[in-house]
């Protein structure tokens, strides 16, 4: 029998339970992952096995500190767009309409959508391969991602680049990712630096995976942002597997957010299947950036529910682990949350779902109708022609300068004679 709670304790039990991890990093999650991965020999073969219980009940989501009903429903709708678009792409992949690989984000929709949703129009974003949902939030259409995967002339890169490798520096403010991991982080720092020279403090949201945390550019880029107090938000999507390698073989620390201490920036751990936690953490980091206080580190723990790409059935993931995370489907959890809040009815949910389905179908038709690229376009635009390039945020604002100083001949010795 559990001990009877007093009324005060009952209220306390309903309050957000924010704990710190052993290194003092705030951990907003409502539960800890109660298992980990080890390797073993089994009947002459080397496998991964799960150690610890995988049957824990799924906690109900805690309300966001900042999201109202309207915004919450919009986040739900965008997550649904993210998923249905990928389901449509998966069907087209099986129909051989997708060229090359297809990288899906099943299980990661809350992290993509809710984080990007916290950005302002003038902010920047640096997506990784599974942030298709973030691109929708930034104003790209599902057909943009579809045409990218189908190598169509109508795709944002006119068939030059694959899948999620697109961006826009004029309207959507998205840095086109490259395949190398961590390389966008310092680019985003530069965007913040450019904005600052034009009198603006902006936020720049950079995604990286647990695997990408192992690269030098990740450290070098984020250290640059930290020391210059630039508004880069490093959102680490800790999705448990780097291609087929479990996180236990990628790094020795338990929480990647521990690294925020070394960077000298605030860090926080959130449940990446909980859109409310992801939004709140990103929102606070964005506000911090606007205040000119610099970079922030968010670790979102979640699970990549598909293989690295479509060809990969992810058989290396122990089945109970998949089951654990399947019960933590971010869209299902959010739907339950909206119902529990009394914010949405079955009819309204159906209207949203039908609307999303119809839009995805229209977008699929647009993507399929786009022609393949003209071969004559293969090697054009290697160079940008001469001409003025506009400042994005307006005139340069230099607070410190000495107009009167003149150039005088260097008298000091150089490094070598």
């Amino acid at each position, binding site marked *: 029998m559990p001990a009877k709670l007093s009324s005060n304790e009952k209220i306390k039990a309903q309050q957000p339970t924010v704990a710190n991890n052993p290194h003092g990093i705030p951990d907003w999650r409502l539960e800890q992952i109660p298992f980990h991965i080890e390797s073993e020999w089994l009947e002459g073969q080397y496998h991964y096995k799960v150690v610890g219980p995988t049957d824990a009940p799924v906690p109900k989501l805690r309300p966001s500190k900042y999201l109202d009903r309207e915004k919450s429903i919009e986040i739900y709708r965008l997550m649904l767009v993210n998923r249905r678009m990928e389901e449509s792409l998966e069907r087209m992949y099986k129909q051989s309409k997708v060229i090359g690989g297809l990288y899906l984000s099943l299980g990661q929709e809350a992290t993509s959508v809710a984080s990007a949703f916290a950005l302002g129009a003038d902010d920047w974003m640096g997506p990784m391969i599974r942030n298709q949902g973030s691109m929708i939030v930034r104003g790209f259409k599902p057909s943009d991602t579809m045409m990218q995967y189908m190598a169509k002339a109508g795709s944002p890169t006119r068939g030059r680049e694959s899948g999620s490798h697109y961006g826009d520096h004029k309207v959507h403010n998205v840095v086109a990712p490259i395949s190398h991991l961590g390389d966008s982080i310092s680019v985003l720092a530069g965007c913040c*630096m450019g904005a600052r020279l034009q009198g603006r403090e902006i936020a720049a949201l950079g995604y990286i995976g647990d695997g990408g945390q192992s690269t030098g550019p990740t450290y070098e880029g984020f*250290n640059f942002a930290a020391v210059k107090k630039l508004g880069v938000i490093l959102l680490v999507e800790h999705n448990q597997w780097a291609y087929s390698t479990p996180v236990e073989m990628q790094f020795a620390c338990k929480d990647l957010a521990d690294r925020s201490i070394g960077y000298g920036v605030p860090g926080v751990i959130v449940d990446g299947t909980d859109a409310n936690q992801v939004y709140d953490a990103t929102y606070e980091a964005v506000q911090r950036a606007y205040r000119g206080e610099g970079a922030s580190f968010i670790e979102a723990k979640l699970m990549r529910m598909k293989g690295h790409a479509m060809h990969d059935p992810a058989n290396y993931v122990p089945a109970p682990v998949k089951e654990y995370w399947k019960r933590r489907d971010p869209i299902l959890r959010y739907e339950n949350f909206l119902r529990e809040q009394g914010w949405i009815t079955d009819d309204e949910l159906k209207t949203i779902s039908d609307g999303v389905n119809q839009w995805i179908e229209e977008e699929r038709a647009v993507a399929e109708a786009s022609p393949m690229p003209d071969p004559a376009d293969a090697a054009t635009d290697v160079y940008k022609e001469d001409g003025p390039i506009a400042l994005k945020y307006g005139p340069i604002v230099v607070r410190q300068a000495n107009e009167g100083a003149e150039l005088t001949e260097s008298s000091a010795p150089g*490094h070598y004679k």
Partner: protein
Amino acid sequence: MAPVTYLEAIRQGLWEEMERDPAVFVMGEDVGVYGGAFKVTEGFVHRFGPERVVDTPISEMAIASSAYGAALTGMRPVAEFQFMDFITSAHSQIVQILAKSNWRWGAPAPMVLRGPTGGGVSGGPFHSQNNEMAYVHTPGLKVICPATARDAKGLIKSAVRDNNPVIFFEHKYLYRRIKEDLPAEEYTIPIGKARVHRRGKHLSIITYAATVYVAQEAAELLATEGIDVEILDLRTLLPLDRDAIRETVEKTNRVIVLHEDTKTGGIAGEIAAIINEEAFDFLDAPIVRITSLDSAVPFSPPLEKAFMPQVADVVRAARKLVKY
């Protein structure tokens, strides 16, 4: 007006561009209060302030790609590499992100990556390299290697104004060793145009950067033997001035390509291929390559001398070539 060194010419060019366009700013290791390892930006922070003369952590990759990020917002960054040897630490960012940006997603990268290159100063293998060919092999970049003070100033100004990532190799041996009078009025030198450094009729030496002076010394010696040497200074390696290469071959019919970079994969091979494709009928003799040895750059002076092409090597090859 007093003659100006190659170093001062670059300083003047950068200073003038920063005065002209507030979107231009410099960043790099020790460029601020210290003024840079070779003093190219000495005094800049006192005029333009720390917002436009930005000291950075020791991270070439972050320097290159954060400069690019600023360029995405319309800025025109000039990133200093303390030694161009260290540009390899930013290689991935330069060739994957910067060079492909306009082609991949229509985002121009108006920026300059500059720094000291080359040997002859006992800098050892990590302060003497000629890394230009890695970037010549990368479409989307422009690569400049000036040999004179006049060209260095005019070309750094053009590089700052260009809408593409420009890699600007400054030969450190030349920084304080050469001097010339510069035009009093403002000028630029176009990117992608070679320059005839010396007119001659018997053979052409196609070269760039510090070896222009090796060629010049050889030409002066050879002149006493009646061999009249033309020297073509490429100035820009990407894009190459194919017209100028063809013209000098058509004129002299004999070619030495001379450079301080190593032989295998050096630009001499590319130039030989261009001549083969576009001016083969004008050749009276095989093309000769004179380069550094296929090795790292040694530290000790006698070793470095043996490694780098010398005047005597050029004279010997020229004598043989005119008799072919």
